[in-house]
């Protein structure tokens, strides 16, 4: 592993350990009260969900253009993280909505497109696992489709009728709520970088194992 990995992992661990204290110090929101504090993990995980989908799509494009399998490994790692952060987003959101909206789920543009994006990531992983030889090219195409959906997810709250908070909420946050949010965004971004590096490392080692098996076959002949 690179030299920066361990210090960064330590910083990330400390940030996550401190995050409950930072979130507790944030002011209560006037209409939603205590339950609005789910926001401080929900929104950063939603951003990481979208960022990992973008990383997956961009790496897939680079793989299709260059044929370099390093990009394919990055795309696969990012797809797994899209599923992970998507799951967190799609579970914490409804828990917040139950108190704030009176229901766990509404089929509006934001929630539905997020669910579709999450299912595309699952499809990518299933295709890679069971698709057989050559499935990486087909999966790369699917990843590009998933990335195109990211822009739609982001702007959907501004164009369609929904009770989901608009994208204007974050820039208008006062310091007492903005600081905990950006603290958590930093912690989740660090976590995303570390997990991506670790997951790519697993794929790199697996590729090396495959090469070693081929060498053993050569010895056998």
């Amino acid at each position: 592993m690179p030299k920066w990995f361990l210090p960064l992992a330590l910083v990330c661990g400390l940030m996550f350990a401190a995050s409950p204290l930072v979130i507790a110090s944030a002011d209560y929101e006037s209409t939603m009260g205590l339950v609005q504090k789910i926001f401080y993990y929900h929104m950063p995980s939603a951003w990481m969900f979208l960022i990992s989908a973008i990383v997956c799509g961009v790496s897939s494009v680079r793989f299709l253009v260059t044929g370099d399998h390093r990009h394919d490994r990055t795309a696969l790692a990012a797809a797994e993280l899209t599923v992970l952060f998507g799951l967190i987003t799609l579970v914490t959101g409804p828990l917040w909505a139950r108190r704030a909206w009176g229901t766990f789920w509404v089929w509006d543009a934001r929630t539905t497109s997020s669910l579709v994006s999450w299912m595309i990531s699952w499809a990518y992983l299933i295709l890679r696992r069971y698709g057989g030889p050559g499935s990486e090219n087909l999966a790369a195409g699917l990843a590009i489709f998933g990335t195109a959906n990211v822009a739609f997810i982001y702007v959907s709250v501004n164009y369609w009728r929904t009770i989901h908070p608009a994208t204007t909420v974050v820039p208008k946050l006062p310091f007492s709520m903005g600081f905990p949010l950006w603290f958590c965004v930093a912690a989740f971004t660090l976590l995303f970088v570390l997990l991506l590096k670790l997951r790519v490392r697993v794929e790199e080692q697996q590729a090396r194992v495959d090469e070693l098996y081929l060498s053993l076959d050569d010895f056998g002949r």
Partner: protein
Amino acid sequence: MTIFKRVSVLISMILLQATLILAQQPSQQGEFLPIDQLPPEDQLPAAPLLIAAYSFVLVVLFLYIVSLARRLTSVQREMDRLDANIKQGGRA
């Protein structure tokens, strides 16, 4: 009043109620406004949801990190074993 008329009136009333309920849907929020004190009645119903959300996030992240560490250890072990086999084959 015939049964048909009674059913028609009932259906019309239900449709009217449904329209009113849909019209009362809360409007979309454009910003979050902080308050100094949390109303006491808000504390209990929200707490289990808040605890569930944070617990879920931490448990899922922990399980994923454990799964990654196990996969990395397993692949590393397999690589060491194959390296040793190749070296033995080279010597033979």
